[in-house]
């Protein structure tokens, strides 16, 4: 993986759109906090590969399609930040 994009903003925040436009091949996106709202938003197309923080998804009672998003915990998040060459927090 080249860049891990950590997105804490919801799809209506300008930062979310800016991020989607910058995701490159070999990049991955991790949704945290308000970012997980994207998993329920039928009006947007989410990038791939896509990860979402389990606690945030459960809090909002979201049920993402496992083909669309891999639901992970903080230990996986740590592993992803180490695996990536670069991490950008949006």
């Amino acid at each position: 993986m080249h860049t891990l994009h950590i997105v804490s903003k919801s799809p209506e925040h300008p930062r979310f759109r800016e991020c989607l436009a910058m995701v490159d091949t070999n990049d991955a996106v991790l949704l945290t906090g308000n970012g997980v709202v994207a998993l329920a938003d039928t009006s947007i197309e989410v990038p791939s590969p896509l990860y979402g923080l389990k606690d945030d998804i459960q809090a909002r009672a979201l049920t993402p399609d496992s083909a669309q998003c891999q639901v992970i915990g903080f230990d996986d998040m740590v592993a992803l930040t180490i695996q990536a060459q670069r991490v950008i927090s949006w």
Partner: protein
Amino acid sequence: MQTLIIIDRPPYGSWSGRESLDMAFSLAAFDQPVSLLFVGEGVLWLNKGQDATGIAQKSVERNLKAAAMFGIESLMADQSACQRFSLTGQTLIDGVETVENLRATLRRYDHVVFPG
């Protein structure tokens, strides 16, 4: 004075929605007419089955379910936002009325309040 409190930010990521609910419950406690309207990403406050223990917050689902009991006149949600987030009769918490014409809804209130 008919008050409408509008919640347009998604749940849990910030405190403004939560503090808007407190405003609504406060008005109701003083017997002042107040309704809540959820629009945009704010409709996700109305999603059934929220469990915020993992993020060390309290779910507000129970409070919202008890809104009528606490004297809040109506819980309304923007229909197009509900569609956008696939909120239907089964997933939307009980007692929520969906509204089609937001502009007409707003017109009925003397006092319209947004979170900060």
